[in-house]
């Protein structure tokens, strides 16, 4: 049935609970993402979408439940975060490029200093991915000399240079002007088509319809509804989902 029937589990989350102090942000989250699957997460502001994907690559630490990333159990308190982060890449809403380094240096930083790659090889890898996102001619510029859309594409290339198996996107187009959204979404579609496993927090429903295997709707720390785009858009089962969709569509 599914596009990826029988593929290995890339991410498995079981009964995940997280609190910020007294505040219960994530409540009993269960989620399985198989290799090459594309998941889109949407939901109102403050519903815990970012927190959920940040728990996967250990930018946040959870208190209860289990997270397995590429078959490796995430240890509490980030003890094996270095291992986990080897298989994940993340793209942020605010790009978070290093402003004092050129585009090329942004891309070669981890390959040379973290992965022990000779500079020449790292630069070749960086140019390959910069070409893939269509900005190889900006390699020697500094991030702030580029447009928002170009910066976000650099951020995607930079992440790909660490050779992740799973890409996490946290509202990658929310900080962009409308005319730049498409250039970033095009790159994400290409990435999805190339077989990357992706979890995208986004409200770009056109993108979801085009590539998502499943859409999750989150509200108040819970996954309220999930399903393939067809079902999800045509007959949402819950009022909250319907209300939300009527706002953003």
């Amino acid at each position, binding site marked *: 049935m599914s596009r990826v029937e029988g593929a290995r589990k890339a991410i498995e989350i079981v009964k995940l609970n997280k609190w910020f102090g007294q505040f219960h942000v994530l409540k009993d989250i269960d989620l399985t993402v198989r290799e090459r699957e594309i998941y889109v997460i949407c939901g109102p502001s403050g519903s815990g979408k970012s927190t959920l994907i940040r728990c996967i690559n250990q930018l946040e630490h959870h208190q209860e439940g289990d997270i397995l990333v590429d078959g490796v159990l995430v240890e509490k308190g980030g003890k094996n975060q270095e291992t986990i*982060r080897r298989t994940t890449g993340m793209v*942020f809403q605010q790009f978070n490029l290093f402003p004092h380094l050129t585009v090329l240096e942004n891309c070669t930083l*981890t390959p040379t*200093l973290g992965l022990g790659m000779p*500079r020449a090889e*790292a630069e070749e890898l960086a140019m390959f991915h910069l070409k893939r996102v269509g900005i190889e001619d900006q390699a020697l*510029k*500094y991030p702030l*000399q580029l447009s928002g859309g170009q910066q976000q594409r650099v*951020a995607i290339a930079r992440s790909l240079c660490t050779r992740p198996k799973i890409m996490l996107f946290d509202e990658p187009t929310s900080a962009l002007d409308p005319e730049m959204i498409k250039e970033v979404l095009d790159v994400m579609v290409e990435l999805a088509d190339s077989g990357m496993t992706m979890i995208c927090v986004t409200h770009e429903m056109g993108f979801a319809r085009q590539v998502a295997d499943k859409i999750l709707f989150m509200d108040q720390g819970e996954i309220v509804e999930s399903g393939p785009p067809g079902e999800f858009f045509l007959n949402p089962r819950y009022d909250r989902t319907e209300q939300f969709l009527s706002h953003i569509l």
Partner: protein
Amino acid sequence: MAATEQTGSRSSTERTGPGRLLYDATVRAIFLQALTAALVVGLFAWLIYNTMVNLQERNLSAGFGFLDVSAGFGISFTLIPYEEGDTYLRVFFVGIANTLLVAAVSIALATIIGLFVGLARLSDNWIVAKLSRAYIELLRNTPLLLQIIAWFFGVFNLLPRPRDSVVMAEAFVLNNRGFYMPAPVPELGFGYVMAAFVVALLGAIALYRWEDARRDRTGKSFPAISTGLAMIVLVPLVVHLALGRPLSWDPPVLQGFNFVGGVSVPPAFCALIVALSAYTSAFIAEIVRSGIQSVSKGQLEAAGALNLPPTWTLRRVILPQALRVIIPPLISQYLNITKNSSLAIAIGFPDLVSVWMNTSLNQSGRAIPIVAMTMAFYCLVSLTVSLVMNSYNRRVQIKER
């Protein structure tokens, strides 16, 4: 040229002829600069003329001839050798050396204290953060002159007499005559130890460069910084031991009513150093804090998500961005220390202003050359530093559109 432009603009309202020049941004900028320069030169010419006339009326001389004359007064503390019969020029250099000594020691102490207090201010520990906050606010918000006087009359002058001195580790002595510590006495062969140190230092730098190039080539890394530091410490140490320790220490010893031997600094020096470094450390702490906070959380998260190792995150992501914010105001604090050290005069420490602008001026009456030389010294220091600063800023500026 300026005149033509002005007439031009008055005679025609159309943008033709010379009048149009006024609308050209570069021409206008050059014109304004020339006008400003003319005003400044004119003002100085007037000042100098006026001074000359006044000096002649009062029979004061602007010449530098007095510099060869014996100053004939004693100076209580001198870094470079000085005797009572030495010339005024010598006094000038004694003052400069003392001022630079105070500045150098205070800068070193203020930087270290400021760094720690600044980091403590960001601590997760509530008490540590509040204490450093209190330290900063207290020192920053009271006048420096008051602090210097308080340290001098309230602390260093009230210390016990030499016989009841506070002695630390049988080598460091503190009493109302000052602070005493053992003096290093280099013996035959110590030159080799110094040479070993220089060689180790150059070797460490070469090692660092070599490691950098090798990492680029092969991708393999190697702890060059810690190896280099170990070299700098161990190589001279081994040479020192091999040569039978060609450096001995001359400790201060109580003889009669006072300590002799060792090196000593007077209470005024101690008060000045403590006050200057404490006061300035409060500003430096704030500079360090704001520098670190200027690196956004997003930068750390990006480095984390990319799995960049923590030491490299510090060296390649945090420090370059934080230093860019920290260094310029830090240097201006260093300049402030140098200038503020002139408050030494309030507690009788013989810095440049005290021995030169005060004693020498009163005694010789050569106000103009003395004031000019003093200003020249402080200007020279400030200009040198700002030149260095500007080139640093140009190098590290973040390129934006």
